[in-house]
């Protein structure tokens, strides 16, 4: 009997904490253009009284059309739905929206992901969010079982041969029971998958040129818009633009015989920022941040007083110097550091042309600090000018082009191709999730009680000392107007770049004497509400365009407690008589 009690005692907590589970049956399907794809969302009831399951999916609407959603046959062997069940479905589509992933909303608990949902909208964007609210009405004393629950049927669109496909993502799925409300719900914990990748066949053609452009993991492909321009050569001179090939988010490109001719000489250039270069200012703002400046200035200030040679402490490879040479003088000089700071401060813009700095991977990774300024050392390997690529097409893709690039001024290569060796300073771009060397930044929500709203940025550096910081805050200009910024690091030189709905700001210890450590508030942003502050409901978002630099000039990470600041007017809390 004692053993029985012990057994019950061990089992009881398990039953109380039982969670249902939702999962995709497969994570990979191969189909051809025009085919339909079926994917099952399955359910493990796990002793709950689930009556509703709420799904959120995202996928490329430009590649797949959701043509049908249906429930598993009630009572079938493979079905989680018992005989006698009636079902209903609410199906909502949000074109142009996509799920913004964070640590908080990519857990294996669907309810947690829902509570921390975050979306971004792009007008005409390629993704869509599909919300499915599935309800079952079960016979008395019956519950759902384990097995197939709902089938999603997609039709593959007739995309271009080099279209880059993305997965179907189940962002969350969670259950509602008739005795316990909304339940913590496992999403593919013990079985199945949370995403499914579709491999699309057909529509391909013979490929003449195939290759990769090495893209950083944090790349915003809609911002970078990398395109390879194929100029046909005449008398060894690139003469006619024959074809422009977009590079996908995975960096892969391929060109067919309908796009370029066989047995012909071409020179290839890389173009970034869109056909008219509209995104170039945003690329520069994203790529060039305070730690690029501090790294460059540190390297410059450490040069030998006797020989003038650089000591290659921050810049360990030639490509670092190439990126730092923003005035294209084939040297690293005060003009470069001055222009870098001007770019960071928003006073002046680094020059970036339609022909971007593209190199063969082998050159990019190996050009030395001694010979980076000697064009011949590059041209021995890469013909076509410093940033061009000569290529002779065969009848098939016999050669693969492995290419890399850098943004001028992005000396730590945070938004450029990664080196095969370590980058100078910290290797990763600042973001809310970083490894061992980082500082904490705390942001607090506010109840608004006056038309002046102050947002303090509370920084904790721990054992580190920092010499530069920058952030970018996005706000709704129909509700808030940016007024000013209070600077809590008075010995630093500050900069503010305020545009409609976006304020980019920061400060740098240019004197290199006033590095800060511990807990302090370097910045407080002040906004004014446009309308009655007591009624306001709005959010400020921190973009990923943030950066911090250590006292030594190295880039370090930033850990945010939240990237959203919620502002809610007092009247929203006042008793409303409901």
């Amino acid at each position, binding site marked *: 009997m004692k053993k029985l009690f012990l057994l019950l005692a061990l089992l009881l907590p398990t039953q109380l904490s039982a969670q249902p589970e939702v999962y995709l049956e497969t994570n990979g399907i191969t189909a051809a253009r025009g085919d339909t794809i079926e994917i099952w969302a399955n359910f493990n009831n796990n002793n709950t009284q689930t009556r509703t399951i*709420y799904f959120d999916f995202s996928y490329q609407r430009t590649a797949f059309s959701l043509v049908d959603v249906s429930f598993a046959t009630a009572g079938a062997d493979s079905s989680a739905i018992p005989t006698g069940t009636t079902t209903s479905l*609410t199906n*909502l589509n*949000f074109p142009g*929206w996509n799920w913004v992933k964070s640590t908080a909303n990519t857990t294996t608990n669907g309810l947690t992901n*829902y*509570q921390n*949902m975050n*979306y971004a909208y792009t007008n005409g964007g390629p993704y869509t*969010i599909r*919300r499915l*609210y599935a*309800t079952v009405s079960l016979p008395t004393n019956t519950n759902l079982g384990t097995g197939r629950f709902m089938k999603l049927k997609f039709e593959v669109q007739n995309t271009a041969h080099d279209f880059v496909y993305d997965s179907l993502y189940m962002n969350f799925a969670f259950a509602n029971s008739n005795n316990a*409300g*909304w339940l913590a719900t496992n999403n593919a914990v013990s079985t199945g998958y949370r995403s499914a990748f579709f491999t699309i066949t057909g529509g391909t053609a013979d490929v003449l040129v195939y290759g990769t452009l090495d893209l950083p993991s944090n790349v915003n492909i809609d911002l970078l818009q990398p395109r390879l321009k194929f100029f046909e050569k005449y008398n060894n001179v690139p003469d006619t633009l024959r074809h422009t090939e977009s590079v996908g988010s995975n960096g892969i490109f391929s060109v067919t015989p309908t796009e370029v001719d066989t047995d012909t000489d071409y020179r290839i250039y890389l173009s970034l920022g869109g056909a008219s270069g509209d995104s170039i200012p945003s690329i520069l703002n994203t790529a060039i941040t305070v730690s690029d400046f501090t790294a460059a200035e540190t390297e410059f200030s450490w040069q030998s007083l006797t020989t003038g040679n650089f000591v290659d402490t921050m810049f360990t490879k030639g490509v670092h110097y190439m990126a730092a040479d923003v*005035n*294209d*003088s084939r040297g690293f*000089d*005060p*003009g470069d550091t*001055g222009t870098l*700071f*001007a770019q960071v*401060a928003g*006073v*002046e813009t680094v020059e970036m042309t339609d022909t971007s700095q593209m190199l063969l991977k082998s050159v990019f990774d190996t050009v030395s600090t001694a010979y980076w300024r000697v064009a011949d050392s590059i041209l021995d390997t890469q013909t076509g000018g410093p940033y061009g690529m000569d290529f002779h097409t065969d009848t098939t893709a016999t050669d693969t082009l492995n290419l890399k690039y850098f943004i001028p001024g992005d000396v730590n290569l945070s938004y450029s191709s990664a080196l095969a060796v370590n980058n100078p300073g910290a290797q990763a771009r600042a973001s809310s999730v970083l490894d061992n060397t980082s500082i904490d930044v705390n942001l*607090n*929500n*506010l*109840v608004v*009680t*006056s038309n*002046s*709203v*102050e947002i303090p940025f509370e920084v904790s550096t721990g054992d580190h000392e920092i010499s530069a910081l920058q952030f970018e805050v996005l706000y709704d200009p129909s509700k808030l107007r940016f007024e*000013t*910024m*209070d*600077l809590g*690091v*008075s010995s*630093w*030189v*500050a*900069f*503010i770049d305020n545009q409609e709905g976006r304020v980019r700001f920061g400060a740098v210890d240019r004197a290199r004497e006033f590095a800060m450590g511990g807990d302090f508030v370097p910045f*407080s942003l*002040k906004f004014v509400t446009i309308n009655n502050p007591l009624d306001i*409901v709005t959010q400020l978002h921190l973009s990923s365009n943030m950066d911090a630099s250590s006292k030594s000039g190295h880039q370090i990470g930033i850990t945010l407690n939240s990237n959203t600041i*919620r502002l*809610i007017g*007092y*009247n*929203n*809390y*006042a*008793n*409303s008589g*409901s």
Partner: protein
Amino acid sequence: MQIPAHKIKFLASVLLILGCTLDPTNSFDVGTDPTYDLGEVPQSTKIISADIDTLIKSVTLNMDVTVGAMYTIHLMHPLGGDPLAVTGFTATTELVTIELDYSTISDGLYDIVLIDTQGNSTRIPILLER
């Protein structure tokens, strides 16, 4: 091409002026207006259950909250945006029941979001269909 010295000097001057014009101290205190009492600091912000009368689009919301703390309930579109309906209250008991009249809201799927004065929130989906 190098930047001419006069340009660097001009640039430095601009940045110096910019740095000097930023007030290193708080220019004025915009602290909370004392006439607005934000109540107790919330310790609990939970939705326990929601009962829907689909006929009249009325939602009875049961919540676990902190006595004396202020809360606001927002009815939202599924992906966010401005609230479609707002209801505020100050908790007088730990278990609060509030009836929400959404009779003027169009049929559809929404979120009900409970938010406290610290900005903590919890949400549930709600299907309003006659």
